[in-house]
């Protein structure tokens, strides 16, 4: 492509690129400079370079590592649960949706509700006096756990997140399942494969790329979780539900520790980038 033509096409992308440079490039730069400076709300415009001390502060903070552990565990468990339930539902319910696609809308509804609102809704649902869940547990079993105490909050949030995002995994799997060509199934049936054989030998292998992508997307979303956790438990009793996103937020807004907060977000950026890069490489290799 010669320079003139290059320019011609480049002009078309220019507005978007300039916009992104302004809203992401510049902030990234600010992040890097401020993470290497000593700065407070009073000296916001005149940061003084201070080396890596902010990074040391963050890396020696036990809460930072606990937040990493929370996010990794939360992302992994919710991704696995969502994909497992979504997969089983997609395969089992597929015949129902064949002629009644409007049923999909009912399953998809949770995806349309803001995670922050869903989190708020659970404050009602799980409330010990006015919440229906404790009410029925008391009525049927004579006791109800404290869903949001230090020991249970993590698993309560896992269930909250899983119930909201299982439809996403379901949808991807249902679409992939439907996209399997009819003659592939027919050929397998001619060979006398049972439905079970067909599932393991043909359908799951054909759906493998979709499964990998769904796990990836759900892990990333769980890893960076903020909205529903923030409104439901904040950082939780004893910091038991402090995700990395909440860690950065609290450092900045609650404690006004701008330097460490920014250093933590740079570390979060590097970590996310490394994970993304690794997974992209993995997916690309599979595709080949």
């Amino acid at each position, binding site marked *: 492509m010669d320079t003139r033509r290059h320019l011609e096409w480049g002009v078309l992308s220019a507005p978007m690129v300039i916009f992104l440079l302004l809203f992401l490039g510049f902030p990234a730069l600010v*992040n890097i400079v401020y993470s290497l400076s000593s700065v407070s709300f009073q000296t916001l415009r005149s940061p003084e370079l201070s080396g890596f001390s902010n990074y040391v502060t963050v890396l020696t903070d036990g809460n930072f590592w606990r937040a990493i552990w929370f996010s990794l565990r939360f992302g992994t468990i919710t991704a696995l649960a969502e994909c497992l339930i979504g997969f089983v539902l997609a395969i089992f319910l597929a015949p129902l949706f064949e002629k009644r696609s409007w049923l999909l809308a009912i399953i998809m509804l949770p995806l349309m509700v803001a995670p922050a*609102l869903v989190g708020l809704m659970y404050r009602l649902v799980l409330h010990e006096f006015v919440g229906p869940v404790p009410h029925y547990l008391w009525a049927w079993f004579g006791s109800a756990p404290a869903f949001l105490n230090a020991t249970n909050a993590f698993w309560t949030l896992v269930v909250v997140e899983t119930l909201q995002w299982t439809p996403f995994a379901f949808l991807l799997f249902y679409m992939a399942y439907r996209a399997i060509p009819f003659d592939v199934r027919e050929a397998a049936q001619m060979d006398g494969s049972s439905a079970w054989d067909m599932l393991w030998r043909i359908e799951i292998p054909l759906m493998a790329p979709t499964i990998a992508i769904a796990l990836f997307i759900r892990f990333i979303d769980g890893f960076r979780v903020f909205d529903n956790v923030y*409104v439901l438990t904040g950082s939780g009793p004893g910091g038991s539900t402090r995700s990395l996103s909440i860690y950065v937020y609290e450092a900045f807004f609650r404690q006004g520790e701008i330097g460490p907060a920014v250093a933590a977000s740079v570390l979060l950026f590097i970590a996310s980038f490394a994970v993304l890069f690794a997974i992209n490489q993995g997916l690309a290799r599979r595709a080949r």
Partner: protein
Amino acid sequence: MIVTALRWVVFAIAAFALNFPVIATLVTSFKSSREIATNPGLWIQAPTLENYIAVLQVTDRLNIFAYLWNSTVAALIGTTLAIVLAFPAAYAVARAGYGRRMLMPLIVNLRALPLIIFAIPIYMMFQWVGLLDTQLGLGLILVVVNLPLALVILVNAISEIPVELDEAALMDGAGRTKIITTIIAPVCRSAIVTTFIFGFITAWNEFLFGLMLTTRQAVPMTVGASFFFSSGGGGIQWGTASAVMIVAALPPAVLGLVMYRQISRSLTAGAVKG
């Protein structure tokens, strides 16, 4: 026969469990505050609209109309501008492969980054230029949120249009800008509508930036709803809180239910191509 019945049972359980918070909130929103205290179950003794009437009362602390308006304006900016910026870029990707190797993967992966990374510098940046707590500021940041998927959907749509259409127009002496606005855009109408609906829902449901970048003037509905949970004096008014959540969830839910076909398709396309 039995299997089909079983499928229906599983579907009913799944639909109920997945939508449980919405169902419980909807039921509670029609109960009087006295009934909420005595009957937390999933049935209503005496349905009432008092909570919805209460929600619509404007006080100096709470103003649901302002939240709805802020969300609408910010989401419209965030969606429209994202499409305007992404469309010509998508055309360059689809027709010349311009940016397919670097720009496209970079932007698509943007969707996977924790937004909080950019929230702090954007907060400072907005403070410097006076965009903090404005609908425009919130709208601009929602553009960033919406761009990746808009780009993917539009690239897919433009790729499906035969190149001959462009070539014929080029022969007639039309420039690229003219081709994009008068030939390509009209053909992509349905993709643009899908991008718009999807972007609007995403923007409406965004919470983190609303929480960080607004305080009084430009508070969006998702953040405003949480204000009802910290009512000054006395405990939380659960009836009012339920009604406000239903109102806040309604616009994207209705859009989603009406457009579920397009949304499911673009969700899948976005995931697979991303």
